[in-house]
């Protein structure tokens, strides 16, 4: 122990001039730490930053034979083509409609649900409700889509007849375009609403119970307690989630929509990600698909930075 310290001291004394050697000393002392970092670092470099460099594809006429280094550089050709594509407006509109439903209809629900769960008095009942509500989150989209397909199937769906009676005509939820946003949002609500409460409930465990006691002494009723104590306690969490949600504004649950798309509802269901897949993987236009993907990623980045900026300006804590 003391010998090791002495050795280090002599090294430092011998080389106290260079900054480089200080780095070397620190590296030698913690080399195992850097070794442990290696897998994670490689992962982020190869699979996260690698594709970012690969975005060069969007400015090339990518040819799989020639690769990134041999393909011809064509500048903004694919972007210009995308903005002229009649599909562009359609995709943009579909995405906006779904994102609008997501933020206006879905986003407030977990907050309300969390406030209601928070008001439950019996501990056991509360735990039971929470366990049941979290469950759908763990079910795959394939299963959710499968259940929906069988329930609303035109041939023998259990809910097809019920809806038919309600609307007075045969309703085809899976293929009629007007039902698509409702179907998608409904699935999101069923699957994620309960799970969405967990972060708010976690934030609420940190609230000082004395605040409620004091409010009661002051004569606040339960509504006032909720409005003035509980809600402000989760305000920061709500804003953080809203910022993140804005960032994923154009990331309309891809796998979910991919599973619910069919030839009948494609005109209202096609969104950025599904169109990228369709263009690049099905039709083989790799560069065009990358360009659409890049456009979407940039808009997302701008949105999240913008929302974060506004949140910070209005005195809230941002995400970063």
């Amino acid at each position: 122990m003391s010998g090791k310290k002495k050795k280090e001291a002599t090294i430092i004394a011998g080389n106290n001039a260079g900054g480089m050697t200080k780095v070397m000393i620190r590296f030698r002392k913690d080399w195992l730490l850097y070794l442990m970092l290696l897998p994670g670092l490689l992962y982020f470099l190869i699979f996260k930053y690698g594709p970012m460099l690969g975005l060069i594809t969007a400015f090339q006429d990518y040819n799989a034979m020639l690769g990134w280094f041999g393909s011809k550089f064509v500048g903004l050709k694919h972007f210009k083509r995308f903005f002229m594509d009649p599909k562009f407006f359609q995709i943009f509109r579909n995405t906006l409609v779904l994102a609008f439903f997501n933020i206006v209809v879905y986003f407030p629900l977990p907050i309300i649900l969390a406030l209601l769960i928070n008001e439950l008095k019996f501990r056991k009942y509360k735990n039971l409700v929470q366990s049941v509500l979290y469950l759908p989150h763990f079910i795959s989209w394939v299963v959710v889509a499968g259940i929906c397909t069988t329930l609303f199937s035109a041939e023998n769906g259990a809910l097809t007849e019920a809806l038919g009676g309600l609307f007075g005509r045969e309703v085809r939820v899976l293929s009629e375009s007007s039902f698509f946003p409702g179907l998608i949002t409904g699935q999101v609500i069923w699957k994620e609403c309960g799970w969405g409460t967990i972060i708010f409930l976690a934030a609420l465990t940190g609230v000082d119970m004395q605040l409620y006691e004091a409010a009661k002494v002051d004569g606040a009723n339960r509504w006032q307690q909720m409005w003035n104590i509980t809600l402000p306690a989760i305000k920061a969490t709500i804003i953080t989630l809203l910022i993140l949600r804005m960032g994923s504004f154009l990331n309309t649950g891809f796998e979910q929509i991919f599973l619910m798309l069919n030839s009948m509802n494609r005109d209202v269901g096609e969104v950025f990600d599904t169109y990228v897949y369709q263009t690049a993987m099905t039709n083989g236009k790799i560069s065009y698909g990358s360009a659409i993907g890049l456009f979407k990623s940039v808009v997302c980045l701008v949105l999240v930075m913008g929302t974060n900026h506004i949140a910070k300006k209005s005195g809230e804590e941002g995400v970063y």
Partner: protein
Amino acid sequence: MKQKKIKQSAASRVFDAANVLLLGGVSLICLVPFLYVISASLSPLSDILSRKFFIYPKHIDLTAYKYLLTSNTLLKAMGNSVIITAVGTFLSMTVTVMTAYVLSKPQLMGRRVLNAMVVFTMLFSGGMIPTYLVVSGMKLTDTWWSLWLPGCVSAYNMILIRTSISSLPSELEEAAVIDGCNHFQCFYKIVLPLIKPTLATFALFYAVGYWNDYFNSVLYINDSTKYPIQIWLRNIVMLSSGGFADASSVSDLGYVPPQNISYAVIVFATMPILCMYPFVQKFFTKGMMVGSVKG
């Protein structure tokens, strides 16, 4: 505690009762689809066609399950999914927790840059196609590595685990270092045992992610002998509801599968999660708490 409940207004009691009922109703909405599918999978086909069941079957008929258990492709797909999930979860947890541990160390050179690098990947990504090109460039397509590697570390999970490691008192590790532990021993013997609830939570998240993943397999796996259960399920559901699907991957059934079979496959594909859920569920709130505390 008792004397605090002196007075409760009538309105307050009405609210409590209504709240209990409302949340009970919401819980039912979450459960009914499960009960419906399970009872459908146990009903004879004639009951399904005439809809003589709802959340419990009128007659029990195990034909669907008998068919499935003799189907080699189903058992193969289940086996594939088990391997994909087990290996994937192990890989993801190892790399994520190790990276989180290192990035929580104040003496790490370039720590701020590295953390910023991780956060940036949450805000901006190369997207589907460039990622596909990287994966196929590494010749990983049609191997399970293409399911394990591209999503190996979730930046979000890594940051939450890092926060929970940072919240441990540093004296513990200092003491271990004095006793002669190196960084890896500290990590393995001191840190890991202390964050067990967090580890259980995130291992479950990764496992569920691998088990439920559908799109990565669509993108990277073409060889039908390597399909996971979710793709198999998708094909069965599409075939039995009259849609188009790759029939060859489920072909050893030899005919268009009737509806009760697709219900039974849904049960198969969901069962492992439902079985695991009660054991890990109690850790959620604890494991997620670290997320609400900003670090």
